[in-house]
């Protein structure tokens, strides 16, 4: 009887436990062994969904803590279509900004000025330039897919956090030479990004910290982890810009017709 019990229950149990343990060990050790680039691929970047809508508040904060606030509704589809409609302050309410083929050679930008009821094409700034006088550049506002442009090296973990050192790939034309990325192990949300630029001092080249992005209040919405507060600090100017996202919705099946001049003027 005892043998039977042993055979029937204890052995399978043991096996299951062992297998489970083994699996756990494998998973854990795999996590330990994951290379920088592997981790980088798993990072929950900001535009993972097919489409998204949100209300965004942009706050510029200067050295003295004085704030300037702008509010807008934002729609995005894929990597290349974006629409912004400003809602605050009152004097720009109703104006809109449409980007088609963002980041592509065929990129087109339109602005609708409600005061004149006119839509005009505008040319975008250079990618590294400031977006609406904030500390975010157009580049920062666009794709956050660092894995396409950077090679990651894994540094020593912090508690619950992967720390990656990202070196710009040779072909990439990104502005920053090196990034240091903190990624939450649990949600894979980027928690902090340090942006370094290469600075020449005589013959020597030195990395200089330019900007720091910190994120906060990450939420899981429709299966996607997303930080809802982003703060970019310009280290040199001691100036900060904060983006706060509300009413985030993903994969609602936005129609392409939203990203047209006609919709822009509506």
């Amino acid at each position: 009887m005892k043998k039977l019990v042993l055979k029937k229950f204890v052995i399978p149990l043991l096996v299951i436990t062992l297998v489970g343990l083994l699996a756990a060990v494998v998973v854990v050790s795999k996590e330990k062994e994951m290379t920088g680039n592997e981790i980088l691929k798993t990072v929950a970047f900001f535009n993972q969904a097919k489409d998204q809508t949100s209300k965004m508040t942009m706050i510029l904060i200067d050295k003295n803590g004085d704030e300037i606030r702008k509010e807008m509704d934002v729609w995005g589809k894929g990597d290349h279509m974006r629409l912004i409609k400003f809602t605050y302050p009152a004097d720009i309410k109703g104006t809109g900004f449409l980007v088609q083929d963002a980041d592509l050679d065929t990129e087109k930008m339109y602005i609708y000025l409600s005061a004149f009821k006119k839509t005009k094409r505008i040319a975008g700034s250079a990618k590294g330039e400031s977006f609406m006088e904030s500390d975010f550049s157009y580049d920062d506002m666009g794709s956050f897919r660092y894995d396409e442009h950077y090679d990651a090296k894994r540094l020593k973990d912090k508690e619950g956090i992967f720390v990656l050192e990202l070196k710009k790939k040779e072909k990439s034309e990104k502005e920053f030479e090196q990034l240091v990325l903190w990624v939450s192990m649990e949600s894979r949300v980027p928690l902090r990004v340090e942006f370094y630029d290469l600075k020449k001092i005589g013959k020597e080249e030195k990395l200089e910290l330019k900007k720091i992005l910190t994120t906060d209040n990450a939420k899981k919405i429709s299966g996607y982890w997303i930080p809802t507060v982003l703060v970019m600090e310009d280290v040199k100017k001691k100036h900060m810009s904060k983006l706060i996202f509300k009413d985030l919705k993903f994969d609602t099946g936005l129609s392409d017709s939203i990203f047209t001049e006609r919709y822009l003027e509506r």
Partner: protein
Amino acid sequence: MKKIAKFITGHPLMVIGIIALITVFFIISATRISIETDIKKLLPSNAESVVTFNAIDEEFGGADRMYVIVEDENVFDYETLSKVDALTNEIADISGVAKVMSITNLNEIKAAPDGVEVAPLIEEVPKNKPEIAAFKKKLLADEKYAGLFVAKDSSATLLLVKLYIERDKTIVTEVEKFCKSYEGPEKMYISGSPSVAHAIQVGLVKDLAKLTPLAFGLVTFILFISFRSWFGVILPMICVGLSSIWAFGLMALTGKPLTVVTVDVPVLLASVGSAYGIHVLSRYYEEDSSRSIKEILETVIDKTGIAVFIAAATTMAGFMSNVVSDISAIRTFGFVSAFGIGSAFLITISFIPAALLLLARKRPEAEGKHKEENRILTRALGGLGNFLTTKHKWTMILAALLLVGALVAYPRVTTESDPVRYFNEESEVVKTSNLARGKFGGAMTLDILIEGDAKDPELLRRIEKLQKKMRDIEILSKPYTIVDAIKETHRLMNNNDKRFDVIPDSRTGIAQYLLLLSLSGGDFLQTMISSDRRQILVSPRVNTSVSTKIDKMLVKVKKAINETFGDAEDVSIKLSGMSVIIKDMREMLIANQVQSLFIAIGAVFLMVLVFYRTLIGSIFCMIPIVLTVMLNFGIMGWLGIPIDIATVMVGSIAIGLGIDYAVHFFNRYREELTGGAERGDAIKTTLKTVGKAVVYNAAAVAVGFLVLPISEFEVLKSFGWLAAFAILFSALGALALLPDLLLSRRKILK
């Protein structure tokens, strides 16, 4: 005094030990001394122009402006333009640089296919001839660029480098290095106040290394002529050397930087402080040599101690009067030089006797040659005595005539505070500044900061009006402002129709244009309007090298502002920029000058009154000095030497130093009278004794000051000449005018 004398002669080793310890302490401190050559850092930090400058720096990204000029026969060729482009990018990368604007990276509002855009003038440097020709044509036809970023004759182009106020001082050297690497055949120049400040720093270090040893050498030489003795030369020089170390030590200890004004403190101490040593040693050689050295020295300290103390105290008062200045460099000069003088006194009165006691076995006799030279001087002074006692009032008449001659020139006295004018006409700084003025409308700016609702069409129209009025002010360039940008946008949004080259009527319209420009232009707006849309910056360049022209320009600008904004509500306008800072500096120079002169005269007069308790005597002692100061300004008027950061101090220095001669003279004269001498004889005796010391002293001090004309700086050159003159004249006043006054008093009394 006797007790002090006894202590010093009783403990010579201890005295020297204490002095050595203090010196070591100050040497250690002095190694931390810093240099400050930025003119705005010399102004009080709460001056409105400085506060506004800082606000502009923060809101508009870098308020300090430097100008890199690339000169070539024709800058419109691929090679030169490529260099400009590379230089623009490299300089922009230096930390502390806020922004670089040049013809290869300037953004402008353009018409685009069915729209507008803010885009660079050129995407990349044009390569082929037609492209380059088109680029050239475009730039020269646009007053935003022609004469501001590219010379109208194509012979040069300018890179405007905006610097943050807080930055490394090495930035200019870094820019220089980059420029050097691209030089040839193009010539590169760097202008603007940061580069001037850098040139001042370089000159200052040179000056310190050049002037200090030379002044010490010359004064040593003068001392050697007067004493022909080893002790007579070395001991006073050690005293002033130590006092210089103490003064610089104190400066470093209190965190005060070395400036173009304080760099001459060692020169001043060498020439002025050595006089105390002369007094002490003169007396030492005068005393009966049959007594022991210790006894002699005790008498020397006792007899000369008070006289030297009074001399030092009045000199300190003269120097100290500068601490009322609003200009920090002059304040520092005031207390550091006064401290140096005080140190020189203390060291002289203790160190010289202590050293003599330890080193000299027997007081050496003065040598023959020494006596012979004295005889010439004695005869001259004797002649002067005879002249004064027989033909009195002549010197008074002469003095009165000189005074009238000086007063005539007073309206011609000017003030100057542009740091460029520290340098002579042949210097690189002036040449570069002239180049910037000739081809690019100047190397300094006027910043007009307008605070109000910048989206209000009414406000923008007023600014438009102001800009129009300012076009009539010759030395101002035409600035490109947010008003121009809004008008251009409005026109381009309306199919480039000229009728729309105006400010739109609606506030929301302006707000939305600004949004458009911020979406398209990156930091295009940043140099013109603040991100909260509450501040607008209008910054024309100022084309002048003369401070008085800045004044006239500012009067006109203020008038234009009053006319356009007089009835505007909720608008505040502040002026800053290097031109305003220079003007503030000048106003302070004049206000402080009057203040410190009165304080110096008052303090010195009170001291003489307290020490000698004779009202008429004190007044008489002051007369030659006051006259000297008044003549000094006359000379400045006649020779066109402006009151500047250095020459402004000549007056108070002359008072502090010159009074010594009168006081010495008066003191000895009274001693003679007390001894029963008749007044005429007393004058003669005083001339022969004190007169000699005064001549030696004045010669040494004047020679010391005459080192300054080889300075790197025009301001110190003028200062040297004027100070030397003032010393000689106050000595002459004490030896000729004062006796005449004293003798005439006898007549009055009789």
